[in-house]
């Protein structure tokens, strides 16, 4: 049964390969047979199915392949199962959703629009590849495979981000890829450094190695920041609000729902969380603070955004900030970590599914189904409230966290998180409001893939605590806990109501948003990077021109030298005239030489 593991990874690749071959064949056969090409078919959609199956497979699986890179070791254990499950589920739903979402483009491509076909080709091929990377990232236990998964996912997703190929998409893609590469660089450095210090080949060994290493703090910092790019650590988060709005909605959903969780998973896999002897407490505190700053900052930045997906992206940053601060606790207070793992996982799963549902919702509100408006609004608001911690999975996750933190020295974190939850609520409210303002005409049939996927996602998101296999029982909040859990959401709702009122009374939109475009710090970074890049290019050019100058000088000198050599001919004439005296001179010279010894 261990074969299931490779199959899980191979299936998406096969799907991709099949798609590629089909495309190539169609191209070979000629341009008019394109109509026969069915893009985003059921086969394509089935890519994550084996993974889902695997996640539901009872018992732990592990497969070891000594020939695979530096020794492959893939595992499905209880810690990985929830990540795999909600990841695969969301990928499946998103794929289904995409079949509806991209219907227009499919039609255009079918009609012979080369550009649409090109875009769709990219999407068809890169989607399973990204998925494969994501799955490998979850399942890998050996570091190279893990890194391979991470890299594959990161790079392949670039193609998804710039799907639209317009200016904004390119900007989003650029922000995404540049930051991702910087992250890769830091991850690679951190992995190499830490793995090198103990010759570790698996993630477990790696965690131990970092715990033991002399300069473990720096290794951990590198890894934290490296994965932090993906997990939206404040300062490195700028790609999220730029990339999400431009990506196709299903891609945004997996990006925000699953892929950014890759970063969190990276933290969990590489940082020596909960390891007693690690002297990483200071780093843990930094992480906590950075996480909270992210949670608040993103909320503040997010509420003034106009594009609902940008708002949702900021919401992701905010939520991930909360998650990060919890991970920080794992470093700062190792003893509290064992209790915290399950809540963190639940929180991640909850956020993933809910954010997925919310992103689906954006697409839904653009093309609403033929349903009563109130029902749509309710269904849209349900995950939103859940994200704010007021309902269903959000409420439960929050209660669970609170319970886990209660005993530790960081119980005050709960209050901070609660305050941050106010921000979350505000953000989703803002997102819903923007969606509502941009809503389209209803017309999508209810049984379209888009709608069904969305509905299913909403339901699944609400029920995350019920089906996510955490390995330990979820702590259900009691009635007495409710006020403590619900006040942030209530406050948030109240504030948004006030804001709505103010907006109604006032001039409508805040003008502030025009001053703070999505991506906030990106623009500063970009300016800096431009300067750096031009600096590097200039440096390269300068080296080149220096080289050219030097070469020119050398060539000039060479010419002069050659001219001088050619001038030597006159000495030759002198030799010619003086041959006999020279011979006698030579004899004299030798006489002198003999005399000297």
């Amino acid at each position, binding site marked *: 049964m261990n074969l299931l593991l490779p199959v899980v990874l191979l299936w998406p690749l096969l799907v991709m390969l099949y798609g590629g071959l089909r495309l190539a064949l169609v191209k070979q056969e000629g341009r008019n047979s394109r109509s026969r090409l069915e893009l985003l078919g059921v086969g394509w959609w089935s890519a994550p199915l084996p993974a889902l199956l695997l996640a539901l497979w009872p018992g732990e699986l592990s497969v070891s392949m000594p020939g695979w890179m530096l020794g492959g070791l893939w595992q499905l254990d209880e810690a990985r199962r929830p990540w795999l499950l909600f990841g695969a589920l969301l990928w499946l739903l998103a794929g289904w959703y995409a079949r509806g979402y991209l219907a227009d483009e499919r039609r255009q491509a079918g009609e012979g629009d080369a550009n649409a076909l090109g875009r769709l080709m990219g999407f068809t091929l890169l989607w399973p590849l990204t998925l494969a990377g994501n799955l490998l990232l979850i399942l890998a236990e050996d570091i190279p495979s893990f890194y391979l998964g991470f890299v594959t996912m990161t790079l392949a997703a670039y193609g998804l981000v710039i799907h639209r190929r317009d200016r904004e998409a390119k900007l989003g893609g650029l922000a995404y890829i540049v930051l991702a590469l910087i992250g890769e660089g830091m991850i690679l450095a951190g992995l190499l450094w830490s793995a090198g210090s103990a010759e570790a080949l698996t993630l477990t060994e790696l965690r131990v190695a970092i715990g033991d290493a002399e300069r473990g703090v720096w290794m951990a910092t590198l890894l934290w920041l490296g994965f932090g790019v993906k997990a939206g650590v404040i300062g490195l988060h700028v790609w999220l609000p730029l990339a999400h709005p431009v990506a196709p909605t299903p891609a945004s959903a997996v990006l925000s729902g699953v892929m950014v969780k890759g970063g969190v998973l990276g933290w969990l896999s590489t940082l020596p969380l909960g390891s007693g002897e690690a002297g990483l407490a200071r780093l843990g505190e930094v992480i906590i603070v950075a996480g909270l700053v992210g949670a608040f900052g993103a909320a503040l930045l997010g509420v003034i955004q106009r594009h609902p997906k940008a708002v949702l992206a900021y919401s992701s940053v905010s939520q991930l900030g909360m998650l990060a601060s919890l991970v920080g606790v794992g470093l700062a207070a190792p003893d509290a970590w064992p209790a915290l793992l399950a809540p963190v996982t639940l929180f991640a799963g909850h956020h993933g599914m809910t954010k997925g549902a919310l992103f689906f919702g954006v697409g839904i509100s653009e093309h609403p189904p033929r349903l009563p408006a109130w029902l749509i609004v309710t269904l849209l608001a349900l995950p939103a409230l859940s994200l704010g911690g007021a309902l269903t999975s959000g409420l439960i996750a929050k209660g669970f966290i609170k319970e886990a933190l209660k005993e530790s020295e960081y119980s005050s974190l709960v209050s901070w998180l609660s305050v941050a939850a106010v921000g979350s609520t505000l953000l989703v409210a803002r997102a819903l409001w923007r969606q509502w303002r941009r809503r389209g005409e209803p017309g999508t049939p209810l049984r379209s893939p888009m709608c069904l996927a969305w509905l299913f996602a909403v339901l699944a998101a609400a029920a995350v605590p019920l089906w996510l296999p955490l390995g330990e029982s979820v702590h259900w909040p009691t009635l007495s806990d409710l006020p403590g859990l619900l006040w942030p959401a209530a406050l948030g709702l109240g504030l948004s109501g006030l804001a709505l009122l103010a907006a109604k009374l006032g001039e409508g939109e805040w003008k502030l948003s025009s001053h703070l475009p999505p991506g906030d710090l990106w623009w500063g970074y970009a300016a800096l990077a431009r300067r750096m890049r031009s600096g590097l290019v200039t440096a390269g050019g300068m080296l080149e021109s220096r080289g050219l100058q030097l070469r020119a000088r050398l060539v000039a000198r060479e010419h002069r030298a050659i001219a001088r050599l050619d001038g030597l001919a006159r000495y030759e004439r002198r030799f010619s005239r003086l041959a*006999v*005296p020279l011979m006698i*001179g030579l*004899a004299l010279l030798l006489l002198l030489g003999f005399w000297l010894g």
Partner: protein
Amino acid sequence: MPPFDELLLAVVLLLLAAATLFDRHLVRACCWFVTFALAVALSWAWLGLVWLALLELVLGAVLTGAFLFHALGVMPTATQPRGLLTHWHDPVALPWQRVLMRLFPALAVLAMLGLALMEVSSGSGSLRPAGMGLLGLGLWAFALHHHLLRRLLSFNVIGTGIFLILMSLVDSRALAVAHGLVVTGLAVALLGTALGALLIRRLEALEASHHVVYRTNGRPT
């Protein structure tokens, strides 16, 4: 004190050599050379080296002389030389600075020889100084003149000088080897002169047909 006749012979040789080398009229110089060769043959005979004397007479005086005159274009039948082609007079002026400068190599060789011969004190006579004198004169003339014929003359004079020195140095047990050397040297001198003379004639013929004047020191003017 060397015998008087030997001294006389040496002086005659030197004088004849000087005349050969420094007469600015070429045909006359060649005539002087023949006389000089005869004198050399006489000295060999006087030294008791009859075979050498005969060889010198044949090779040095008769054959070499014939080749020299051939080079000059002076034939027994045609007494008038082809004046256009032959430089009856050496056309190159000889400023005294150059004359002195060109003396140095000759002096250097003579000095070296002198140093070396101080070690061999045995044997006296005036033939050795005469040989050295010939050597010096020849070298000086060789350095001084550019005309090929004059250089050939100098070469022959130097050779003779060396033979004289050699014969004055050797004792009886090495006489055979010395003979061998001198014979070879004579043959070489003859061959060299012959080759040079033929070359000069050929060159002049080519110059005439190409209307290009090559100075015999090798550079076109």
